[in-house]
């Protein structure tokens, strides 16, 4: 038996970097009593009325497959919800697909639109899955560096510089993980102009839209002529605190949604029915809890950012999501060194900026999806650590 041949991994997968920064993650997960500002999910448990709907669904025997695109009633509720909350109009019959989180939706859209060698512009720092999903779909990610741009924001000019005849799409995520950056209507309009002028597609990941504190969230498809140029991704993980339910959705032009559905049908079949039932409840009755959680995050945001700046870690006030992206340049350490030593010496977990792109050496990401008391204690420890 030739094990090398038997267990050979495809070159494409073999060459993908391991997700995130494995060694650091293992270090954190192997340690007890850590105050963690290192998470990418709400610290709130899913509101009970949503969990209860899931329990009820199980009791009623909802344990089967659903249609590939999702339960009809869920598709309709999504259409109603995004019309009401964001003023986006999509036809539930052919322009919406229920997915297993935005992660699956992102994978589907890349596989649906890319041919080998097609380029996708991806801003960095960004969520860790974007670049691998482009590569797995045979595309070439083209990195748009926003490390030095004000507020880590993508600008129209920065996109335009990278557009080539091979560019198929641009990924935009706002409010952003990891920086919390979001965009005013004017800023979005100027980005939309570039998209229109160059006839490329915009893939808009707006999963944190309900956690926007200073700028009213404007959805990309609502801008003039942008609906037909946008694949709009959203879900329930962040705003409704439903990460473990693994449920999200994609909206877009019928042709693209139909292609995505084709892949989804063969690889996923459908999103879990219990999560779909829970999502219906979230859409119908979830907004008061979402707003309550957002108010809570907002207070924590100000507290954390003030604390960080007080420690000499330069950090702009992020407009949304639940992350602060702070510079550790003043300490002379890299993000990785800072995060590792902070963990070892003070038992506070943060994510090194390197996890979000190779230019992230000056930064750390801190999540304020943690209790006020944990944030206060973490800031005290960081202060002590920085002074050493």
């Amino acid at each position, binding site marked *: 038996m030739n094990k090398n041949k038997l267990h050979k991994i495809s070159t494409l997968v073999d060459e993908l970097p391991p*997700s*995130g920064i494995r060694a*650091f*993650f293992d270090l*954190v*997960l192997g*340690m007890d009593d*850590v105050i*963690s500002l*290192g*998470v*990418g*999910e709400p*610290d709130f*448990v899913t509101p009970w009325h949503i969990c209860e709907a899931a329990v009820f669904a199980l009791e009623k025997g909802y344990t089967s497959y659903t249609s590939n695109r999702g339960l009809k009633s869920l598709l309709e509720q999504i259409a109603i919800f995004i019309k009401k909350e964001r003023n986006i109009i999509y036809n539930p019959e052919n322009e919406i697909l229920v997915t297993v989180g935005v992660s699956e939706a992102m994978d589907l859209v890349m596989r649906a639109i890319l041919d080998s060698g097609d380029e996708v512009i991806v801003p960095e720092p960004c*969520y*860790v899955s974007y670049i691998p999903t482009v590569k797995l779909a045979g595309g070439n990610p083209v990195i748009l560096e926003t490390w030095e741009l004000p507020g880590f924001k993508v600008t129209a000019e920065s996109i335009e510089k990278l557009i080539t005849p091979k560019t198929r799409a641009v990924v935009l995520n706002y409010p952003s*993980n990891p920086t919390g950056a979001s965009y005013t209507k004017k800023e979005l309009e100027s980005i939309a102009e570039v998209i229109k002028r160059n006839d490329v597609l915009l893939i808009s990941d707006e999963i944190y839209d309900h956690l926007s504190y200073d700028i009213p969230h404007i959805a990309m498809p609502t801008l003039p002529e942008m609906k037909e140029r946008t694949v709009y991704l959203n879900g329930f993980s962040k705003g409704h605190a439903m990460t473990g339910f693994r449920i999200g959705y994609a909206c877009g032009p019928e042709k693209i949604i139909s292609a995505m559905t084709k892949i989804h049908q063969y690889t996923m079949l459908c999103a879990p029915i219990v999560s779909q039932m829970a999502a219906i409840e979230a859409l119908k009755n979830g907004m008061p809890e979402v707003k309550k959680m957002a*108010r809570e995050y907002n*207070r*924590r945001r*100000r*507290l954390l950012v*003030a604390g960080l700046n007080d420690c000499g870690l330069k950090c702009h006030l992020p407009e949304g999501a639940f992350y602060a992206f702070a510079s550790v340049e003043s300490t002379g350490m890299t993000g990785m060194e800072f995060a590792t030593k902070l963990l070892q010496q003070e038992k506070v*977990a943060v*994510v090194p900026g390197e*996890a*979000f792109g190779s230019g992230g050496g000056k930064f750390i990401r801190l999540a304020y999806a943690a209790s*006020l008391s944990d944030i206060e204690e973490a800031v005290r420890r960081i202060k002590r650590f920085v002074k050493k």
Partner: protein
Amino acid sequence: MDDILEILIQDARKSPAEIAEMTGKSEKEVADAIADYEKKGTILKYRAVLNPEHIAETDGAVRAWIEVSITPQRGAGFDSIAERIYKFSEVKNCYLLSGGFDLLLLVEGHSLQEVAGFVSQKLSTLENVTATSTHFMLKVYKENGDVFQNTEKSERLAISL
């Protein structure tokens, strides 16, 4: 509700400086707003939330919900008789309700006998009280939004992207 009030409801010991940081207001603005709330009586007082079960353990405290049926009085309705009842220090809460009875009281005492004594000697003997029904409290699960038992919480990964 105002942000300041929402923060104080959760933790009344938050200082104006801390609240200022959380809300983006100045410390003076927050202090002034709190003083104003206190003056207007929006904020009545600040107190600790205790676990009644722990108090029961140390003090032997007993609590009971008592349904009271009363005959309303001409001119004063339920109010004057309610006042006669809620002025007893044993009565911690007192509500007028619609339905099968009129007043609902939360009564606290140091022992079962003490609460029973209050009902039989003070409450039932009032002229306008026509009936009472006493329910002793066995366990508190949740009170004023606070859950009084250690519930199992699912473990979040300490780090995720």
